[in-house]
């Protein structure tokens, strides 16, 4: 294992020190328990947005803390959910009297820890709602699995709900909007290579030299199938088709198309994929109104990409376009 780290156990803390050194003017960092919070938190009268999850997906979530997006983010260890004390302290730190929205990705650990945080928080007098993301169509959604994983839609939801909260919309509205974004978004990912967590030092799974995995999760969870390496055009089809059929997206729909890198894939390849996505959606008369291309919800150094489509309505477009000022996303400021 070759990594730019000081020690496997110190990666998350050391990265937080870097965040503080780089962005200390706009965010405060708490180390024990670990969370990052907007420098001006709590913002009076504004719904506070708290997200969290395992580390290793940067810039998500810490890189999305700032005006127009998250109020706080709780980083867990690499690929491990954060703990209830982090979430409870972050919730307290961002409560400006209008309540707090927890944004939770559907993973067993994340859900249980946020549940415990909500239980611990009872009696603090803070109104807390939560919204769950579960947009990964690679997973069969059934009673016999942990359900669909939360992936790319999480980034879009954090931005859109962040815009609504900045607009001083009440908690119930922001939570409803978040639910609507999740309901109208679908994603699927693929991997060219596995990644190596600092803790284990081993690849998260084995993939042959000429093999790719379609439907991969952001922690290297297995996907739908493996096959021989394909062209970007063929890979894009294998991701776009199940996404389009699942919602389903149909002719005349307006969408946000998000091509996300897994961390180890260069931007030039993501644009190659985006060209194919635009072609495939054009063939189906689905209109791309907004797009996002880059590494936003990553899986350490994994090579690969994921595609997310979100069926837009006017309110979503308005809050997507609203100003945002975070290390990971910035426009309109």
């Amino acid at each position: 294992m070759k990594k730019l780290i000081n020690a496997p156990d110190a990666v998350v803390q050391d990265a937080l020190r870097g965040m503080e050194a780089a962005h200390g003017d706009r965010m405060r960092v708490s180390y024990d328990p670990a969370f990052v919070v907007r420098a001006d938190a709590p913002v009076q009268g504004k719904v506070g947005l708290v997200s969290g999850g395992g580390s290793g997906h940067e810039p998500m979530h810490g890189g999305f803390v700032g005006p127009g997006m998250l109020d706080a983010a709780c980083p867990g260890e690499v690929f491990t959910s954060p703990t209830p004390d982090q979430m409870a302290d972050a919730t307290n730190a961002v409560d400006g009297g209008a309540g707090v929205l927890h944004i939770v990705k559907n993973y067993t650990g994340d859900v249980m820890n946020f549940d415990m945080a909500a239980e611990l928080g009872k009696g603090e007098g803070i109104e807390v709602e939560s919204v769950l993301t579960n947009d990964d169509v690679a997973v069969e959604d059934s009673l016999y699995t942990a359900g669909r994983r939360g992936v790319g839609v999480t980034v879009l939801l954090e931005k859109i709900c962040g815009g609504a909260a900045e607009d001083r919309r009440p908690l119930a509205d922001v939570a409803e909007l978040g639910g609507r974004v999740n309901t109208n978004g679908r994603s699927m990912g693929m991997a060219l290579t596995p990644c190596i967590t600092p803790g284990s030092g081993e690849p998260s799974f084995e993939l042959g030299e000429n093999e790719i995995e379609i439907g991969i999760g952001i922690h290297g969870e297995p996907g739908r199938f493996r096959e021989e390496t394909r062209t970007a055009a063929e890979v894009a089809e294998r991701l776009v088709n199940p996404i389009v059929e699942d919602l389903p997206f149909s002719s005349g729909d307006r969408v946000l198309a998000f091509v996300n890198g897994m961390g180890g894939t260069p931007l030039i390849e993501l644009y190659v994929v985006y060209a194919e996505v635009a072609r495939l959606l054009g063939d189906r008369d689905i209109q791309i109104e907004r797009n996002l291309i880059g590494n936003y919800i990553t899986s350490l150094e994994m090579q690969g990409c994921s595609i997310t489509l979100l069926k837009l309505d006017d309110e979503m477009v308005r809050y997507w376009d609203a100003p945002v000022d975070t290390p990971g996303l910035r426009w309109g400021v």
Partner: protein
Amino acid sequence: MPVTRDTVLDWMRRFAGEMEEHRGELVRLDTAIGDGDHGTNMDRGMRKALERLDSADQGDAGAVLKTVAMALVSSVGGAAGPLYGTLFLQMGGALGGRDEVDLAGYVEAWKKGLQGVQTRGKAEPGDKTMVDVLIPAVEAMERAPDLDAALRDAVEAAERGMQATTPMVARKGRASYLGERSKDHQDPGATSTYYLYRSAAEALGG
């Protein structure tokens, strides 16, 4: 010999030792069907628990387990933090307020712990989780004539329960994403729970 604060402290120290010793094994098992962090997380959590046990006097056996529970909840993360945290929190509640706990009290604490784990994780028998070790172990203890027999029988039942997870298809947690491919792998959570029974037999046995 009844269960006391000192024997429960010894149990937790031995469990921490097992987590350190078997860290690599748990990581390997978890890498096969999960995300590979179970050994690392449990080792880190139990180290934190020992630090807290060393830094403050523990009133009784229940307080020891509650201290361990809160340390795990705040340091393990993942699913194992809330699940082991809930197990020890519920057991601690059942064991508290007494200097000595007999067989009936000990078994009752495990039943409360099992109930808490099932409420938190919603796992049923056969889902390939720690519940597949907890249920047979608790049943074995309920049949035992005395505490020593209960501790011994629990280890045997736990070992069989752990081994029985190997052919199961996972229905909970990250392993469930594998579907049929989760077969032929022993569940890491069931394995760490087996070590919990093994360390209990060593520490609490006569």
